[in-house]
């Protein structure tokens, strides 16, 4: 993974010193809250329902054991012993003190981490494929380009006061694990006719109040032109994006209102002007960054994994864990191990300091010290020897980290909702907890198969409810928590937005509704069909009938 050089270090350290001075001025009363708010937000510090919340970037979801230990330390020393992994490669601490935030940022800087641009109307933490560098079928490790984008977007002088926040996602393979089509800019690595690697550029996707699937504005962009092209898009958006209405300020609306064709024309015209500027990436610099992402020293291993196979044969729980949590690795004899942060009846994405420490130790022992965080709020050990999976599993189980449900119905994405978030209309976590409890039975879980439930506490859609197979949205109805349910969304290559089922439900009803939807699927599915496949074949009506009764 990438390691800071002296310049990266200097920037982050200067930034900490700057924030320390700003906090001192605020505490001394020299800055008012109105003056201070934009400054703290630039450093990821929010004020939530119960306390401040600090959002820390985990750039493109990669971190090492040392960094994970630091997060554990911060959780213990400065917070209440736990942290929350979000849907955007961030970690949130829910109880930091303002007075101590500069110290927390200094701790983070010591392990090459920061909270810069995790908030505000700027280019946010760039996100990527959690299997980058480990999965089959990758054109290049997308993190090389993520790091290049991270640096370019950090304290960008022109694009720090955009109409609205701006999110970029990059994937290096056809299998889209980064939901690139629902980002402001999505980049998919492609090869042109001559076999050169580059990017398909997708613009204007996004969730929230008016969800859109992004549009391809350039099928192929040479790699060295990445930054000039991004700068052209951002410049057009910065000038054209609406500033009169917060709900229409995202680039998806700009693209929609301008028309994708006209928007593309404007970007291309701007790009022509700056294409050959200093933004053209020097090969030397790309190579320098790429060297940081060279594969670790994989051992030459045999294809067979006798210990793992034997355990699978005799241990049903282990077999389930391997089936659901382990993915194929590009190197023979290795596997990708997912660590589910979705145990039954617990807040999705939360991890205790002890669990973080355990994961760090396991990363050192099994995965070259490497860890990934996923947009589904789980963790990944990307490079595990396949025959050591039993050993890993046992250690995960001892720490309460062996839930075998990746991609299944209890692997729910949920935003913090009204338990923490000041913008929320309704709680999100308790709904998720109750659904996992309802579907706790392993046989039933297996029977249902691949299923994504996503839940947000308000229309901001941090829980990505629009692209859940089943999406749940908390709304406020006459001062009571209320939930809208939609079905048919997808965040993968076949990205689609779900459609609202009908009138909403109380918190007590919503779990039953999910169960009815699942039962409808089970009753209608053909052999081997997933939920989303069945839904696409039979449409919404059978689900509606089951949930609301015959029309």
């Amino acid at each position, binding site marked *: 993974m990438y390691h800071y050089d002296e310049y990266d270090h200097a920037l982050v350290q200067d930034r900490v010193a700057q924030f320390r001075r700003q906090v001192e001025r605020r505490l001394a009363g020299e800055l008012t809250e109105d003056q201070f708010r934009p400054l703290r937000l*630039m450093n990821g510090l929010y004020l939530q329902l119960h306390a401040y919340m600090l959002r820390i970037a985990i750039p493109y979801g990669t971190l090492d054991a040392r960094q994970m230990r630091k997060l554990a330390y911060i959780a213990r020393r400065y917070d209440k012993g736990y942290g929350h992994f979000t849907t955007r490669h961030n970690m949130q601490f829910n109880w930091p003190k303002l007075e101590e935030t500069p110290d927390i940022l200094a701790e983070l800087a010591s392990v090459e981490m920061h909270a810069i641009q995790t908030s505000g109307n700027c280019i946010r933490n760039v996100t990527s494929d959690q299997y980058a560098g480990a999965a089959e079928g990758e054109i290049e490790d997308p993190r090389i380009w993520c790091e290049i984008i991270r640096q370019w977007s950090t*304290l*960008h*002088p*022109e694009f*720090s006061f955009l109409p609205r926040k701006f999110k970029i996602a990059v994937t290096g393979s056809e299998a889209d694990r980064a939901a690139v089509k629902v980002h402001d800019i999505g980049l998919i690595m492609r090869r042109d006719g001559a076999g050169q690697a580059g990017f398909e550029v997708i613009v204007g996707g996004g969730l929230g109040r008016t969800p859109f699937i992004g549009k391809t504005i350039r099928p192929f962009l040479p790699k060295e032109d990445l930054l000039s092209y991004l700068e052209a898009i951002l410049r057009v958006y*910065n000038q054209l994006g609406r*500033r009169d209405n917060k709900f229409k300020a995202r680039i998806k609306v700009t693209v929609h209102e301008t028309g994708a064709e006209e928007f593309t024309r404007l970007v291309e015209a701007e790009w022509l002007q700056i294409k050959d500027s*200093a*933004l053209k990436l020097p090969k030397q610099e790309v190579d320098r960054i790429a060297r940081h992402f060279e594969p670790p020293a994989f051992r030459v291993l045999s294809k067979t994994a006798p210990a793992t196979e034997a355990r699978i044969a005799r241990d049903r729980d282990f077999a389930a864990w391997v089936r659901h949590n382990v993915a194929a690795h590009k190197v023979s004899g290795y596997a990708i191990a997912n660590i589910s942060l979705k145990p039954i009846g617990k807040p999705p994405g939360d991890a205790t300091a002890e669990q973080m420490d355990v994961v760090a130790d396991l990363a050192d022992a099994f995965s070259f010290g490497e860890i990934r965080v996923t947009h589904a709020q789980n963790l990944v050990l990307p490079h595990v020897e396949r025959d050591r999976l039993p050993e890993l599993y046992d250690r995960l189980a001892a720490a309460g980290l062996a839930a075998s449900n990746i991609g299944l119905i209890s692997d729910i994405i949920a935003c913090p909702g009204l338990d923490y978030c000041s913008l929320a209309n309704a709680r999100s976590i308790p709904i998720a907890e109750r659904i996992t409890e309802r579907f706790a039975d392993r046989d039933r879980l297996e029977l249902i198969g691949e299923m994504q439930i996503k839940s947000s506490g308000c229309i901001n859609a941090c829980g990505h409810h629009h692209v859940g197979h089943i999406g749940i949205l908390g709304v406020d109805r006459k001062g009571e928590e209320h939930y809208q349910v939609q079905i048919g969304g997808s965040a993968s290559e076949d990205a689609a937005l779900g459609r609202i089922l009908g009138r909403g439900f109380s918190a007590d009803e919503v779990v039953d509704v999910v169960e009815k939807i699942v039962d409808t699927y089970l009753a209608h599915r053909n052999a081997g069909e997933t939920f989303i496949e069945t839904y696409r074949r039979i449409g919404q009506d059978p689900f509606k009938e089951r949930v609301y009764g015959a029309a």
Partner: protein
Amino acid sequence: MALLESRTDGPALVEDRFVRLADDAALPAEGAVLVSLVRFEKERAALLARKAPLGVWLASNQTPAAISNELDRLALVALDFPVFSDGRAFSSARLLRERYGYKGELRAIGDVLCEQLPFMLRSGFDTFEMKSPKALEEFRAVVGEVRVVYQPTGDGRATAIDRRLGRR
């Protein structure tokens, strides 16, 4: 209101030699004036015929392309920040400097947030209308606070990449 100028030897408080004219105010016979784009377009000939320096200010929704052919006749272009969070003028400034080659005074007016000064400098502004009585101290405190820049802009500062490659 203080006017701050960034010079090679540091910031200085300077006197504003321009009078900002309302669109309906009478045009004085003498003295430097700053007018809106609307007024400039309407009274172009009369304004350019005067012997005194002329400035035009652009609202944040007005594109600098509108004056790109007049720049050698302007002594001042001012870009307005109606609220600090409206960042359109950052793009306008870069376009004026880097695309249209404007060399004269480029002023930030309106809601200029002290913490934005480094970004403004990088985008090509060289004077700043600031409300705070401690503008000079604030400028010194924030400018140069972060020693590294990643983005090449018209200010010509060596970026991290330049320094890594030993280009500068």
